[in-house]
């Protein structure tokens, strides 16, 4: 079988497996991994008089993984009545997309923009901005995404510096969490949570093990785990069926490739 046809056959198999499970969903039970459970417990224990900052430094490309994570975390925060601020560091689209999610989810829990949550929008400056947040939040942020001064936003009242922040959860496909760890956890011991794409998760384990991260969500699986914990299955859980079968197809493909390879090797060894 030519290489071109083999590739296309593999793609068709994968697409069929994913689409098949999307059309005919399979109910599955999700067990929660320790990193996701640690993040859930940390958010459960947050005080309601301090701001939870959700840094949505993701963009449309990784929406498939980061959007369900964002939704699950925001749902948990709105369920508990925590004041929430959304912003983004790396990508301009992140806070916009996350703001849409928050605007959709917040009314389900009776939460209102301005009173219970705020969107600071996209902020440039990287580590300078994060260091500025630690010292003076109103001075660094100044206005929200609608250009309203922060001192006129009820949820921002009494929020002056990092001591008024309960936790920062960074949702991103890139490794920007060391900035928060260095400037916030390292100096002020602010709890940092991390929700990343699956491929970035292995790199973050050293930070999790050393306690610099309170918990972590790994890709779409992490979103599904978190939805299980908050009791609201949504896009994360819906994605577990297709992801499961996609993994099975890839494993089957690898095994098939090795069987064909071993057969070829045995043939070439025959006299």
């Amino acid at each position, binding site marked *: 079988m030519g290489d071109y046809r083999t590739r296309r056959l593999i793609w068709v198999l994968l697409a069929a497996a994913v689409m098949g499970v999307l059309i005919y969903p399979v109910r599955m039970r999700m067990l929660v991994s320790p990193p996701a459970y640690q993040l859930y417990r940390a958010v459960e224990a947050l005080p309601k008089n301090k701001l939870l900052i959700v840094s949505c430094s993701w963009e449309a*490309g990784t929406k498939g993984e980061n959007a369900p994570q964002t939704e699950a975390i925001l749902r948990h925060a709105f369920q508990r009545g925590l004041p929430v601020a959304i912003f983004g560091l790396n990508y301009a689209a992140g806070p916009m997309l996350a703001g849409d999610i928050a605007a959709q989810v917040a009314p389900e829990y009776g939460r209102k923009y301005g009173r219970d949550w705020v969107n600071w929008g996209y902020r440039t400056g990287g580590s300078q901005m994060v*260091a500025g947040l630690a010292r003076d939040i109103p001075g660094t942020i100044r206005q929200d995404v609608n250009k309203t001064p922060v001192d006129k936003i009820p949820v921002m009242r009494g929020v002056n510096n990092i001591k008024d922040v309960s936790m920062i959860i960074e949702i991103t496909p890139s490794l920007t969490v060391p900035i928060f760890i*260095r400037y916030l956890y*390292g*100096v002020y011991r602010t709890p940092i949570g991390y929700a990343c794409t699956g491929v*970035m998760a292995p*790199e973050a384990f050293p930070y999790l093990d050393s306690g610099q991260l309170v918990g972590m969500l790994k890709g779409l699986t992490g979103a599904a785990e978190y939805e299980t914990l908050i009791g609201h299955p949504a896009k994360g859980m819906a994605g577990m069926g297709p992801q499961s079968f996609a993994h099975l197809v890839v494993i089957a493909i690898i095994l098939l490739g090795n069987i064909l390879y071993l057969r070829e090797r045995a043939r070439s060894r025959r006299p």
Partner: protein
Amino acid sequence: MEHANTLQLLLTLACVAAILGTIATARKGRQLYVRRIPGLQAIDQAVGRATEMGRPLLFSVGLGGIDVDTLQALSVAQYVGRLAARYGTRMIVPVVEPVLLPVAQELTRDAWKAEGREDAYRPEDVRFLSGEQFAYAAGVIGLMSREQVASTFFFGYFYGEALLLAESGLEVGAVQVAGTPATTQVPFFLVSCDYTVIGDEFYAASAYLTREPTLLGSLIGQDISKALLVAAILVGTLFAIWQGKENLLARLLGG
């Protein structure tokens, strides 16, 4: 940590002393051994292949901004650029960061100038594609397909688009050499590229290619620094086992 503590300062001073010391030793003419790195050795062959086939080569410096990883990638790009200029082969350099554009243009112009072929330099071969990750990937894939590149080089920090770029290069039939400090993307490059430079080898690239004593000395200094770090870990572990978390060493060094 906003400012260093005593431990960090001591470790940094030790590493810096090791690196500067070995640079000084190397400058005195001492022969230094660096093991063979297949990925870097293959660079010359890849450029040669592009020259033989009369097709251009493509050099991507990754998605980082002006940072250490990208500067290292640019130093490899300069070496490849000089080779390409020497053989009269086009080198296309797509960049993702606007800040990198003048740097990359200057670098490639210098490479052609150094080979005495400044008149053959094409400024449009160094191009800004997009600041967005996947738009950049789509642009590079398009470039590879349209220009039918014979060799591709992926050096720098890459994210999820690494496999997209490498597989597309494979489809075009290019010889591919990749080097990245991004550990999560190394597996993707390993399966799709002919040669891959992993982890520390990436930072050794400029020393390995140019064989300049300063850079070779720095490479040896890096190894000594790693040994110092391992020793520091062992000493710290022993103290922690002996006296627990709040041991004498931790109190002295503020760690």
